[in-house]
Each structure stands twice: as C-alpha cells, then as structure tokens.
C-alpha cells in the first residue's frame, strides 16, 4: 500500500508535468511572445505542486501513524493496568499485539490482546486507505491548480525558482538540524540519566560497573556509574597512540616536503593515503589477530605480565591509523611556510636540517599543533579499534600493558542489543556520548582556531 501510494504520487507528478507542458505550449502558440515563462517551467511548476505536498503529507503520516495507533491500542486496556506498566512492558505488549496481528501467535494470548490485534488490523487498514485517499486528493488538487494557473501572465519560472530556493535553503539547514538533533538527543537522554544517577557520582565516581540487573531475578552487578576510570582509559590509549603517531607522522612529513624528490613523493603519498582509507574495523581485526598476540608473546618473553587485550595493542594500532592524518596535516603546515624564509635560511649557510629545525618547524608550529589536536580528537572518538582490541572492564590504571576501557567501547557495549531507554544502563551511554561530543568539539574548535590564527600571519 505504501509503495503503491508512492507510485501513484510519482505517476501523477509525471501526468501533471506533461499535461501542463502541453497546455502551456498551446497557450504559447496562441499568444506568442506575450507569454512570460516557457512551457517547460509551467510543466515543472505543476509537477512540484502535484508531488511535493503529497510527499510531505505521506512522510509525516508514516512518521506518526505508528505512535498514534500504539496510543489507541493502549487505550483499549483498562487505564489502571496501563498506568502500572513501565515503558518496556508497554512496548512488549504492543509488540505482542503486532505479532498476533501479523498472524504469528505464540502460546495462548488473552482475549483482550486478541481483540486488540483485530482492532489493530482494522485500524491499520483504515489508516492506509485514508492516507491513500488524502494523498490522491492532494495530488489531483495539485494537478488542477497547476493547469488552472497556466496563462500568458503567470510567472511560472519565478514560482519554480522560489520552490528551488526553498529546497536549497532547507538542505543547507540540514547541517544545523543534525547538530541540533545530536545535542537535543544527547542532552535529553543524559538529563534522564542524571535524574536517576546523581551527577557528582558520574563525574567524580571511581567505579564504573554499569551492568545492572534489568529484571528482578537477574544476577548482575549492583551498578556504579563513576566515569573517571573510563576517561582514564580513553586518555591512556589516546596517549599511547599519539606517542607513536606524532613523531612518525611528523618525520614523514618533513622528509616528504624537504628531502624527497618529486618522484619519491609522488609514489609515497598515495601509499600513505591507503593507510588513511582503510576502514577502522580492519585495523581492529589486525590488532586482535596480529598485534595483541605479538605484544603478549614479546612481553611474556621478557617476563612481563601482559593482558590479552592490552592498551598498548589498541593504542599502537590506532597510531597506524593516525600516521597519515598527522603527516598530511603537517605537510600542509610545512608547505605553507613562505619560500622566502626557507631561502633566507639557506643563504645564511644553514644546512637543510638546521633550516627545518630552526626555521620551518617554529614557523609551522601552530599548524602542526592544530593537526595534532585534530588527531587527538580522532583518537578519543575512534570506536572500532578499541571496541575490538581494548578491554570492557573499567580499571583505574595507566599501565599500557594492562587492559583498559574507553568511552566509545562503553557506549557501543551498553547499547548493542538494547533499545529500552528507561534504565540507567542504556542512558549512561548517552551521558558518555555527550561528554565525548563536548570534548571532541572543544578540541576541534581549538585546533581550527589555532590553524586560522596562524594562516592570517603570512
């Protein structure tokens, strides 16, 4: 039914376009150069009037139809019973009704539920049919308006261009909507979390054990939501990654911009870009399959106690991902240093190395710092490598050979397979997400400010 409705909209839009274009052409032949817009604009205008309102109606309808029907379904039961239910129970009841309505009956449901399923099927049919009717009416009205408007003085081109402008402005606002959506969803769910768990426990608590029992009879931890160990773990892994990635990336950039000749540069840069293009899930698998066992064997050989999911393995592999990133940003910063400074230094008799260390690096430092901050923000927000290679248990230690957990690991493990947002366990993921978003935002803004300030200098 839904697919058919879309098909009807599509077909009527074409009909509206063709009809309006033909009609406009006949008018044009009568009135000649008095006609303001060319027939094609009349056609497009009619098509817009036919299709766009109908599409907006159908999208809103589909968005709210289920919510409305769910409320109606719950209204069938005694109000006292519904009030006593948690939101998880409610969604369970609704999904049971929906299963029965779709013909999948398990066990013997109560009569009330069976009746509700019957009602659901009726209502769904009514909703679909009325949606079809409304959309059809909107389309036909659009065609009629589009055809009626055609005349020598109707400025169809202006109308089309106005619609186009509206569409373009709407699309430009998508970026703002996305940001608002991110902030609203994170803040709303975090607010719910902080109404269950006090904020000071989250910000200053030293224990993170979110696996609380979701049912009364479940065996699980008591629950503790102190985020400090999680952030310590994130900090440890990000530091390890930066310790390896910054020198390697920076030296690579120095060699490529200052020492390498054109041919070497042209072959090595694309190879480094391959490293940047590898999906992070691949790095995660590489860490688990190769790097972690290697570090463990090596450490055990030295008599050290290495955890199977050591922070060193996750951070080391993350460094591989960051090398091309740091290298290309430092490359840009070094290349932006004016030629005159470089040549002035050579003219004084400085060697290449001295020029790099004493002239280029100080001059490019703001750009390089900006790049390093962006890389740090990436390291903190990186998810798949740590989900696969870092630990799950939050522990307060900074030993790189031990297993630590990170913010992103916790977000993913808390939310995989869980969708009820009514307990602190799932909601805590959103509080962590909010912190992650804010931290990376600050780092990005800082980095961009540094880079911009520096650019203004030359």
């Amino acid at each position, binding site marked *: 039914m839904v697919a058919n409705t879309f098909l009807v909209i599509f077909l009527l839009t074409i009909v509206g376009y063709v009809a309006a274009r033909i009609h406009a052409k006949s008018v044009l032949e009568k009135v000649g150069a008095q006609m303001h817009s060319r027939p094609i604009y009349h056609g497009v205008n009619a098509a817009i009037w036919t299709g766009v309102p109908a599409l907006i109606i159908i999208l809103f309808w589909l968005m709210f139809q289920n919510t409305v029907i769910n409320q109606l379904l719950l209204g069938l039961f005694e109000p006292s019973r519904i009030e006593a239910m948690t939101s998880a129970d409610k969604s369970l009841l609704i999904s049971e009704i929906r299963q029965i309505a779709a013909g999948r009956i398990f066990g013997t449901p109560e009569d009330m539920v069976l009746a509700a399923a019957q009602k659901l099927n009726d209502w769904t049919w009514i909703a679909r049919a009325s949606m079809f009717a409304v959309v059809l009416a909107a389309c036909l009205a659009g065609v009629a308006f589009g055809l009626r408007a055609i005349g020598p003085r109707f400025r169809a081109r202006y109308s089309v261009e106005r619609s186009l402008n509206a569409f373009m402005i709407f*699309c430009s606002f998508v970026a703002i909507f996305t940001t608002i959506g991110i902030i609203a*969803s994170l803040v709303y769910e975090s607010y719910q979390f902080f109404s269950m768990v006090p904020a000071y426990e989250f910000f200053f608590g030293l224990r993170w054990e979110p696996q609380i029992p979701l049912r009364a009879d479940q065996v699980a931890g008591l629950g503790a939501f102190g985020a400090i160990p999680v952030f310590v773990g994130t900090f440890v892994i990000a530091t390890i990654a930066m310790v390896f990635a910054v020198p390697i990336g920076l030296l690579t950039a120095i060699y490529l911009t200052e020492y390498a000749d054109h041919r070497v540069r042209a072959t090595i840069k694309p190879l480094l870009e391959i490293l940047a293009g590898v999906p992070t899930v691949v790095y995660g698998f590489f860490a688990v399959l190769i790097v972690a066992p290697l570090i463990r064997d090596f450490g055990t050989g030295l008599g050290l106690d290495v955890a199977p999911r050591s922070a060193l393995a996750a951070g080391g592999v993350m460094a591989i991902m960051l090398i091309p990133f740091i290298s290309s940003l430092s490359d840009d910063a070094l290349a932006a240093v004016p030629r005159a400074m470089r040549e002035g230094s050579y003219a004084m008799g400085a060697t290449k190395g001295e020029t790099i260390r004493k002239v280029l690096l100080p001059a490019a430092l703001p750009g390089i710092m900006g790049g390093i901050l*962006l890389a740090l923000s*990436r390291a903190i927000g990186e998810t798949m490598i740590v989900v*696969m290679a870092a630990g799950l248990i939050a522990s307060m230690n900074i030993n790189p050979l031990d297993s630590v957990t990170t913010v992103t690991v916790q977000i993913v493990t808390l939310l995989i397979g869980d969708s009820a947002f009514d307990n602190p366990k799932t909601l805590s993921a959103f509080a962590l997400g909010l912190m992650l978003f804010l931290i990376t935002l600050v780092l990005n803004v800082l980095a961009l400010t540094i880079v911009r300030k520096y650019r203004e200098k030359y």
Partner: protein
Amino acid sequence: MSIANETARPAVDWRSVEVTRFRKRRYAADRRLQFYGMGAIVIALGLLAILVTSLISTGYSAFTQTMVTVPIELREDQIDREDPFSANWRTILRDSLKKLTPELEASQERDYFALFTNNAQFLVRDQVVKNPQLIGTTVSFTFPVADPVDQLSKGNIDRNQPEQLRRVNDVQIAFYDKLSEQGAISVPFNWSLFFNADSRFPELAGLAGAISGSFWALLVCFLISFPAGIAAAIYLEEFAPKNRLTDLIEVNINNLAAVPSVVFGLLALAVFIGWFGMPRSVPLVGGMTLALMTLPTIIIVTRASLKSVPASIREAALGVGASKHEVILHHILPLAMPTILTGTIIGLAQALGETAPLLLIGMNAFITSPPAGFLEPSTALPTQIFIWADSPERGFVSRTSAAILVLLSFLITMNAIAIFFRQRFERRW
C-alpha cells in the same frame, strides 16, 4: 663602521681542524634528520605491508572451500512425492553416507558424520524440493565438509599434534583420507562466500546478506546526500547572503565533518529509532545515518568545484539573458559535475567502511537471508566483519580476512572510479 668591525675580527681559517669538525657535525646532524625521516616512512609503509600481507595470508584460504561429493539415493519409499519437504532427510543422508564407507563401525558414526557440514541434509532437501523429478534416482550431491575438516585439508591442522589438541581426531583423519583417496574430496573456488548469507557454521557462512545490506544502505545514503549536498552547496556558494545565520551553517558543516562517528550512531538510535519509531537493523536507517555523515564531505567538495568554474562562463550566460538559476543549472553545475562526482564517490567509499553507527542501530544482527529491500533487517559489510571477528571458530578467522579483502577491493574499485573520473572528465581552467 661595520666594515671596520669585520676587518677587526681575526680571519676564520675554514680549513682548520675545529671548523672542519664543526662542519662535519652539522652535516651529520642533517643526515641524521634525513635518516630519521626515511626511517619513519619505512615504518609507516612497513606497517601497511604487514597489514596487507597478514590479511592476505589469513584470508586467501577462505576463497576456496573443501567440498565432498556423495551419491545420495533418493528412494521413493522414503520420500513422498507430494510432500518431499517433510521426509526424514537426516536418515536419507546418513544412509547414503554410510554406504560410502561400508567398514564404518557403530561407535565411529558420531565422528564420521561430524566430518560433513551440519546442514548437509537441508542442502539436499532444498535441491530435491526444487527438482522433484530427482526422487527415485541416485544423485551425487556436492556439499561442504565441516569447518575442522576444511582446515585439515588446507593444512591448517598439524596431523603430528597429539590427538586431544587437534579439533579432528584420528578416526576422522582416517575417514577423511579414505574419502580423499576415493576422489570424493574437492577444493573448488568458494562461491558460497558471495552467494550465501550468514550462518553459525563457518563452512556455510557467506557475504550475500552483508553485501546487499551495504548496497541498500549506500543507495539510500547516495539518494539523500547527493541532491541535498549539491543543493546546500549551491545555496551557500551562490545565493546565501553573508550574515550570522550562514556563518553558523558553515561552522556547523565544518564541525560535523569532525564529530566522532559513534555520536552519529547515538543520534540515529535516539532520533530515528527512539523518537520516530523506525525499525531497527534496517538499511534505510543505516543509509540515513551515513547520509548525515557524508553530507558535509559532499557540500565541501561541491562548493570548491563551483568556485573553480571561471567567471567568464557565468557572465556570458547572464549576458545572453539567462536567469541566475538557469546559469547555475544549465552551465555551472554541468561543468562542475565531474569533480562533484569524484568527491561523492570518495565520500561513499568512506561511508561503506563506517562501522560504529551501524552497530548502534542494530545492523549487527544474525540474519540468515539477504534483505530484499531497504526495509528488511540486514547486516552490512563492515558489521559482518565485526560479527565474524568475534566468532570463536577457526574458520571464521580466515573468513573475516576474506571479508576484509572483499571490502577493501570494493573500496579500491570505488577510488579507482573516482580517479578515473577526475582524470578523464575534470577540466583545468
């Protein structure tokens, strides 16, 4: 005065021992820096080489699959022509398997049957249901062996190890060797890697579901982000007044490009699934999430390419009476299109490798049939890699690497197409 000073200083003897030593030290420092740079590059490229070799060396074996060919007797007294589906396929299969090795003892049956894939009976059943005229004949079927035997035939299991450390015991090895002597074992190319959906058994697991899930998600992503990105870029580049609001939009676009992907997953989970009530695990939601992530890339690329079209074209079109919209739609945009397409393909390639947001919206479910559209639950290539990487069976290790190789080859192909577009169609003004 400065000249007087110069002459007052004692002349430097450039050939003296200490000056030569000083110069040597400076040159050595220069060479050291150069050497460190080379070292850094060697490390970076070496890591790339290790990454690729380890993936290929673990993954190549999954591109073949050990199969066994068994003649199976489809007796009419065992199979009802009217209803072949509900015959006792387990017995039919086992009877035929027993005939293959007449010396089989009752105590060895368990080990022997474990040589073959667990779902062999269903594979045979599905074939017969499809071709009921086979009933009453003896047909030779080819199906995969169980994962440990596959590993044995590929040489990943050491026969000299003590029996309890191996995942195949001596009895099984003996039977395998016998079957091999009879010529029943073959190791053809593993088509099921591409045509099967996911399975609990590594020998049957394939990427069909993941590939089509990724396809639908990318299609949705493209259909949303391509028009929306171009429209937004045209507005910001050509029409937008310079004011606070458009500044805010630009800051937003630049910032969204740097927001961690997992945050987009949280957005999708809370807004699309939580508030709008969209279904979990479907490519539609995945594609919408990826579209939000790809949008900034496309907007930035499109703006740059619109900017690079020379002003003379714009002025010529305006001069012959085109409206501003006509100038852009008829002239500027077609000329900028190759660059936009290049950027879009690169953006889509990034979206194809994105994992974390898809995990959060549940595209890591265990689904044994490929999705028929973007509204059916499915996995995607990167999430399938994640699922397989978490599975303990030995066979999934090589299958994970193989899946990664498939994903990487898709990415390489997309990037190659992008490079081709750039070199073939891009204009330099």
